[in-house]
């Protein structure tokens, strides 16, 4: 088994809802999808949702606002799955709820860094 990052791309989704305890409110679709991956013992980490606050720094201390200054599509979050191959990982991503709202999933193999 190898590990793959699922990187979720979509248009900015606006405000991110949090529970009173400060946890992310996850929709039923996402929870069921992720639960299905976990039930196959292929979830390494549900990963993280990325927030809306962002800056980009470029050479010469040029700073731009937001994660989406020049592009419409942003990275909304990422998870880590376990799969036999990239084809197998693709199969897992097949039902990702982000596909229903015009987004896409980028799948990348993970190479561990030492130290």
């Amino acid at each position, binding site marked *: 088994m190898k590990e793959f990052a699922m990187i979720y791309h979509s248009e900015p989704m606006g405000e991110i809802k949090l529970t009173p305890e400060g946890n992310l409110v996850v929709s*039923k679709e996402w*929870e*069921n999808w*992720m*639960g*299905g991956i*976990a*039930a*196959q*013992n292929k*979830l390494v980490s*549900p990963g993280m949702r990325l927030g809306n606050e962002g800056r980009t720094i470029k050479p010469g201390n040029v700073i731009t606002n937001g994660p989406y200054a020049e592009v419409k599509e942003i990275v909304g979050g990422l998870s880590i799955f376990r799969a036999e191959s990239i084809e197998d990982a693709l199969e897992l991503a097949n039902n990702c709820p982000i596909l229903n709202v015009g987004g896409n999933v980028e799948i990348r193999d993970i190479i561990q860094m030492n130290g």
Partner: protein
Amino acid sequence: MQEKELIPYLYRTEFRKITAVLCRSLGIEHISIAEDLVGDTFLLAAETWGLKGIPQNPAAWLYTVAKNKAKDLLKRNALFSQKISPQIQYSTEDKHEIEIDLSAKNIQDSQLQMMFAICYPGIPPEAQIGLSLRILCSFSIDEIADAFLTNKEAINKRLYRAKEKLKQDNVRIELPSESEIDKRIENVLTTLYLLFNEGYYSSNNNAVLRKDLCLEAMRLTHMLTENETTNKPAVNALLALMCFHSSRFEARIDSNGELILYEDQDTSLWNRELIIQGERYLNKASTGNYLSKYHWEAAIAYWHTTTNNEEQKWEKILSLYNQLLMTEYSPIAALNRTYALSKVYGNEEAIIEAEKLKLDNNHLYHCLLGELYSDADLQKAIEHLHQALKLSRVAADKKVIKNKISKLGKLKNV
């Protein structure tokens, strides 16, 4: 109470208390000696009480005799050590002065400390459970052998090896420090959880023994909630889980000792009192910011005790299984999640999810598929159930599967 009943009763309630105190006084290397001393005390009680009648305070009699036996032993040991190794004379002189304290508080403390010593990850889980049953629950070797469906020799060997390992690793009989407690208590909870499951799901046909195992697991978990240091949210969550499960004791086994599936149970037999107790512990578990797997499982078990809103119930259970699986994978959680999914989204959807699980060697996987296919494809359902029957090793499970096969077989022939 007559002497005939009194001694077994006292054995069950007092053996563990005196043994824990003696273990603590004598040290981890002398567990067997402590067991023997207490065993001898009970033999002497049987002889003496038979001749002279039952003393006014039988428990106090046992404490005094056990205490004197321990002191004699320490004295003899002290003499022995003085002759053999004068260099440790001072420490043995200390030992000589050791007070064997059988006060209620010291009994409680000693039992808790022994719990941490026994639930030591250096010995295998079955040995931790076996030793717990012996030292913390006063089970005889025969009873432990019955519980594990094996013989006395196997248990004696298992416990002997475990005690040697505790000695070798010089495991200390003490409560862990505040900074260590969360990590160490995980081992204790795992063992108590396994002990409970051994009773709740075990292959043993002896319903009384099985219930006993569950009650002992609950008693020990309850003991952890009584001490400030060990009264952690995860402990309360585990106890809540146990209360919710055991509320169905009377409903899940019929008069022939056969298992009744959850769906077929008479809910009026569910024990309301245990459910309310479970709710109380679950509320107590809702502090701090760490959710253990027992929290998820207790919440799932809580929803299983409800009967007034089936739709909401299964949606909640599915959601909780999703979250449990994201925290920690287990095949049984994966199968139960899929069952919950079928309750919310129907069998067709659940079959697609089930077949992704790839648990072909698990009899419960085939039971689940047998269940899910029984509406749409009887032939396939029966095939899965036959596969389940082949893989199942537990008599009670086999019986349930056989019943289901014959039920479906009749439908097929209509």
